[in-house]
Each structure stands twice: as C-alpha cells, then as structure tokens.
C-alpha cells in the first residue's frame, strides 16, 4: 500500500497548499488549485449527499461546494464568513472545497513525504497519499481525484 502511495509522486520538489479542516491539517498539490475565495451561501441541491453543500455562482459558472470535513468523514461544517473555499480542478470538473482556513504553502521534496501508516479506515486509504511532518505538525497529503471519482457514464 505504501509503495503505491509514494510512486505517484513526481521527482524533485513540489508545492502544496495546506489547509485546516476541523482540527486536522491537510494539503493538496498547488497545481490543482485555481483560486481561493471567501464563503458565500450556496444553493442547496436536492438529492445530494450530505457533504455537498450546494452550488454557487463563480463568475457565471455553477460551482458545487463540497464540505471537505463531511467528505473526509468528520463532522459537518457550519460555515461562517471566516470559512474559505478552495476552488480546485478535479479531473475535468471544477469544485469548491469548503475548509476552515488556508494555513501554508509548502515546498517539499520526496524525502519529506512519509508513507501512510497501515490503518484500517478505507476512507483514508482511498485519498491519503502521504504524511508530512512540518514544524511538529502532521499534514496529510490528499489526492482530490480519489476523493471525487468520476463515473464513466457521466461522460455521455
């Protein structure tokens, strides 16, 4: 499992955006982040899973907002004006990730990444791609593509 986690990483250094969700810290590849913006109320979607907060208008495009806390299996967020939306590209789609705050921009190399320990949680196995230890903090590197699998049937 761990070897799979590490082999997806490119050589050399890379930049990540770190953010807080609940009391944990996560990070994603900066290349997938389009912009960061403040929270605006979303229009709820019918028949949507709990972690889909709804959709907002991003300069004319309809952008779904994902409560990352709920998506990662933690408590549902109660968004305030202080919450932040990370607009990210996930495969062909653009989604907004609701997080508590953006904490850091990290430049790391392969050596900084530790493999994900063998734990039983399926959810974590799916999205966690490594763990970073930075300033005594633990930051979990997640892969957005794995969080939001695209169904082939939707392509039609």
């Amino acid at each position, binding site marked *: 499992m761990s070897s799979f986690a590490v082999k997806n990483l490119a050589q050399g250094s890379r930049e990540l955006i770190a953010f807080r969700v609940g009391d944990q810290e996560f990070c994603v590849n900066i290349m997938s982040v389009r912009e960061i913006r403040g929270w605006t*109320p*979303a*229009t*709820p*979607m*019918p*028949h*949507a*899973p709990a972690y*889909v907060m*709804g*959709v*907002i*208008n991003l*300069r*004319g*495009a*309809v*952008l*779904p907002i*994902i409560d990352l806390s709920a*998506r990662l299996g933690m408590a549902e967020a109660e968004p305030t004006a202080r919450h932040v939306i990370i607009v990210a590209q996930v495969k062909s*789609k*653009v*989604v907004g990730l609701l997080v508590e705050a953006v904490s850091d921009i990290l430049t790391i190399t392969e050596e900084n990444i530790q493999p994900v320990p063998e734990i039983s949680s*399926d*959810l974590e196995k*799916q999205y966690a791609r490594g763990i970073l230890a930075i300033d005594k903090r633990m930051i979990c590197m997640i892969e957005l593509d794995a969080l*939001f*699998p*695209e*169904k082939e*049937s*939707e392509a039609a």
Partner: protein
Amino acid sequence: MDMNEIKEIFFQECEEQLAELESGLLKLNDGDRDPETVNAVFRAVHSIKGGAGAFGLDDLVSFAHVFETTLDCVRSNKLEPTQDVLKVMLKSADVLADLVSASRDGGGIDESRSRALVKELEALAHGEMPSASAHEAPKPAPKAAPAPAPVAKAEPPKPTDESGFQPIPFTFDGFGDDEEPALEGSVYEITFKPRRELYSKGNEAALLLRDLSRLGDMSINCDMDALPALDKMDPEASYFGWKISLKTVKSEDDIRTVFEFAEWDCDLDVKLAEEAASDEELPMIPVPFDLGILDEPSISEEEEKAVQSSADETVAAAVSAAETATSVAKAAGRASEKKESAAAAAAAAAQNNAAAAAAAAGQTIRVDLDRVDRLINLVGELVINQAMLSQSVVENDATGTSAVNMGLEELQQLTREIQDSVMAIRAQPVKPVFQRMSRIVREVADMVGKQIRLVTEGENTEVDKTVIDKIAEPLTHMIRNAVDHGIESPEKREAAGKDPEGTIKLSAKHRSGRILIELTDDGGGINRERVRQKAIDNDIIAADANLSDDEIDNLIFMAGFSTADKISDISGRGVGMDVVKRSIQALGGRISISSRPGLGSTFTMSLPLTLAVLDGMVVTVAGQTLVVPLTAIVETLQPEASAIHSFGASQRLISIRNSFCPLVDVGRVLNYRATQANPVEGVALLVESEGGGQRALMVDAIQGQRQVVIKSLEANYTHVPGIAAATILGDGRVALILDVDAVVAASRGQSMKPEMSLAATG
C-alpha cells in the same frame, strides 16, 4: 496559415459542396429540370475535384472525375436524369462524402463499393442505362441516351471549313493509360469564347489553345466579330473567340479537361463535327489562324499578334497602351464586320446574370464557433449583470423615477436585443441534418430491400446549432427504425393495397417558441398486441395491466424494449427508443408517438430553439428559489380548500373545472421538506407533461417571470433528478431550473434514482 489550415478550409468547403450536391440531386430526383440545378450539382463535384487535386488526394480526384464526367453528360443533355440514373448519382454522392471524410480523418472506405459505382458512372457516361441491380456493374443496355457516346466509332476526318488543316504532330505520352482504345479520331467542333473573368483570373487563352492542340490535329479560326472600334474598346475586356476543329482520338471529356479551370469563365461548346454541321453557326467571319506559331513566339504574324496582345492586355494592364492599340487596330481592320451592339448586349446580360447570382448567394463570413460561443457567454453574463444592477437600484431607490432607473430600463432592452441577435448568429436551418437523413433512408432501404421515399418539409426552419448537432443522432435512430420496422416490405404493402414505395415524411416547423420535428411513415403502425406482449415479457408492465392505446404506443420508449423479432444490422442493437427519448429530454425536448394501425406512425419531437436561454417562472419552494420553464406551464391557480380532495393514503387531487388533476408538491419531490405543504397556502402550476397528462405542481409562491440564462450543472457537478439545469439570478445566486417532466414522472411513482458522480464509492 499553414497547409493544414488551408486543408481544413477545403474540407469545410467540401461539406458545403456535398450538401449542395445532395440537395441538387434530390431536386432533380423530384423532377426539377432547371439547368441551373444541374450546373450547381456539377459545380459542386467540380470544386471538390479541383480542391482535392491541389492537395494530392488522388482517390478523391479520380472518383470525382468520373462522377463529374457523368454529370457533364446530364448537363449537356446527353443523359436523361431518370430515377435510375439519379439513384446511381445519389449513391456516388454518398461515396464522395465518404471519400472526403476518409481523406480528412484518415481511414478507408469500402473500395469495392466505390469501384462498382465508378463502373456504373462510366457506363452511364457512355450512354448505357443502369441495370436493375444497382450493385453490380451494369450489363450493356440498349442505348437510351439521345446522343452518341463521346468516344464514338471512327469518323473519317474531314475538313470542316475553308481554312483547311494545319497538322500538328503530337504524341500520346502523358495521357492516362486507362483510356479506352479508339480506333481512329473523331472531329470535334469547338467554340471557345473567353469572358473577361478568364483573363482577370490569370488564365491565358493562348495556353489553353496550345494544350488543346496537343490532343490532335487542329485547325483554328479566330472570331473577331465582337471587336469594337478602337475608341470604344475596353482594354480589359475580352473580344475574341475561337472556332476550332480538332481531330482527335480523345473523348469530349478530355477536350473539356483542357478548359477545366477556365470553364466557368468562357463560353465553351464542344460537339462532334456532324452535329456541328447541322447546327446554325454563329455569324462570324473566320480568320485563318495557325496555331503552330504559338510554339514559336518569334514568328510575328499579324493574327498571332492580335491574339497575343488581346490576351496579354487583359491578363495584365502592364502591356503598353500604344502597342495594344496598334495591334488591335490592325486586327480590327481585318475583321470585316463588327457586331458591336450584339456583343455589348451579350456582355451586359452576362454581367447582370453574374450580379444576380452573387446577390442570391448572400454575403456570409465563416466564423469560428468558439468565438460565437464566447460572445454568447459574455452576453449571458451581461444579462445577469444587468439584472443584478437593476435589482440593487430598485432596492436603493423605492420611487423608481430617477434617471438611473430610466437608463436601466433602456439598458435592459438593449441587452435583450443584443442577446436575441447573438442567438440568431447561432441559428441554423435544419437542412443539413435532414439531408443526412435522406442518405440514411437510401442506405437502410437498400439494405433491407424496401422502396422508400423521404419527403422533407420546412428544412429551412432555424434552430440553434447545438440543437441541430444533437438531434442528428436520435433522428438517425428514428429514421432507421422507421425504415426497418415502420415501413413494410413492398410485397406486404402491395398486399395491403398500398403503393409499394413507402413514404417517410420529415418535417420541421416553429411552434410557440419551440421547434417541432415530425417523423411520419405510412407503414403498418405500431403492432399494439406485440408491443403489449413484449412489455409483459420484459416485465415492463404487469400481465393484467389495463392500458390505453396511447399508453401502449408509448411503451416503446421504455428502457429495454425492442420489438424487432430478430436483431438486425440496422436497428435493434440494444439501443432502443428509450435512448432516443433520453437524448431528446436531455435537450429539454419532448417526444411522443401517435400511431394508426395499417396507416403508419408519427413521432413528434418538440425541442427548444436554443439551449442557452429559457423563459421561466421564478417560484419559491420551501425557501428555495426555483425556475419553472414557461413552456411547460398551462396555467397557474390559487387552490381553494374545497377544490382539494384526498385520494388514497398520500395522494391529493385538485378539481379544476370539474376535472381532477393530481397535485404534486415540488418541495416533497425534491426533498426540500419532509411533509407535504398545505396546498391552500401555495400556488398550483398546471403543467402538461410529455406523456400528455396534466399535473398541478404545488409551489409556495410565484416571484415573477423572466428570461434566464441556462447554466450547465453537469459541467462541474452531475445530473440531478428533477432538475434540468441551473441559472444565475439577479442577486448573483444560483437558482435551479425544474425538470417538469421528471417531477411529473416521479409523481407517477417512477423512482428518481440519484446518479451521483461526486458520491463516495467507499
């Protein structure tokens, strides 16, 4: 601009030419005998050939050439465009289209088919009528064509005019080795009169004549009758014509090939000598003219000089005026008679014709679709922004009389107008799609051995390009179905006392802001017994279900339904009418069928004119703002408590003018609230769904009516059952557009399965 871009333009033009070709052939098929139609068809093939030659697309060129040759026989009235002939030609047009797309996208085509057609075309060009079995090379049939074949039996060469021959040696080298061997040459009378366009396009009469001389023994006379007096002469006009007598073993087509790129800019007449002799000749005084001198420019005979200078002066204005004047004056002196006025009148007429043709073609420009889409998106933003601005002004200025308000109203009108105009850019006639269908009918009918005629109506009805692009597929499927299942075999039709040739009618028209496409066949209609049985077999309905005829007919739209007994190549490949229905629905359209046993069926599709905007009613449901497409709403009403009747455990009906209509709480269907709202506190929207039934949709309040810009939910999210799309309202928030049909279907008990692409799989 690199070669690929130029090639891309060529292919785009090919598409247009192919469309032109097909529509022309279809017109001929319908009995149109306008020479202009024949010309248009010929021109289309000719242009494709010309372009293909420039890109070295040899397959395309050779096929187009044979096709062109045959068309030319039609053009010169040697070949009667009968149904049989046109059948071959339509097939050739299909093959030509295949060749074009093969050249564009790579990949091959069915070579045996194109070879067979080449044979048929050649046979036609040689005066043979097509045999009954179209796929085999036709056997020589009685010569029905009015004129003899171009490569005729040997004719003794005979001088046709007083000038006599000046034999010019030539070789056969460089000519195609596929020429049919002709024993001896025939004598052709060729009249060649360039127009000024010929010179202005950089063609040179002398070079054409020289090429011609290489085909055989040739004598040439210059016709200078049209030459006006010097003071009346236009230095860039064309005054000379040539009368050529050519003895050659080549066919008339080879002669015409010489003039290939000049043909549209000259009057060219090629006929066999004996025909020519019987024809009344143009009044002209032949001037003996020896072409041999063309090969040796140093010889300065007067005639030659006249010809040369006349040609030169028109090709380029660079020739000194003095020199021109002298030589032309000399030539003028030799021409004993001048038919100035006649020539001038003819020239004027030709110019008028050209002008009229240009006007008819209209002025168009080719624009990249992306640019148009970008413009449409921007205008969409503008509309939203304008609405937002209006709203905030209204909020801050309650009186509504300020100059700002007035200006805003004008702005609103302007944006609306801009939007309409931009949308109009994308509007296209449905013609190309309809034309494609005629090909499908031909091919499928051939495959299943049926005789079917496709009649199209209203093909100039305009609709947004995206709609056009997207209806092609479902329409193709329906046409295949109609041919395969709808129309019966000729024997069955005859037994039923019908015309053995079936008719499929495809029509388009605008109706109340939508486009209505109808597909009617005069086949056997839906076999309700079989449909019912099949539906029972496939567990679609219960064995004892009590269904109306209409309901049975509509069963064919259910998933997993195919009535064909055996799976054929053409239809019934597991994709049924349910796929058609879904793709129509995805376009915001509706489809229904009506069928009369023994008389045929009619499929009716109603589609929005554009996929970009929609007139909607903005309503509130459980605190959420929703947009209901206005086209779906029949009426709105405020229900009274006395009109609401409970029906069973959870159903409620509303009585409207003594009929009962199920009440659907939109808030419940969309899961906005857990319990049903009190109907008396809300508003009922009476909607008509595509199944025909009426439903009363309960909403809490109506906010207003407005045009909204449709935004895709699927782009970033996923399809949501009950929701057609999203839009952005004046306050900048997203509002969802209700999918009325889906909501109605849900109320019928059909489940709305959420398809979640963003859902966790773990």
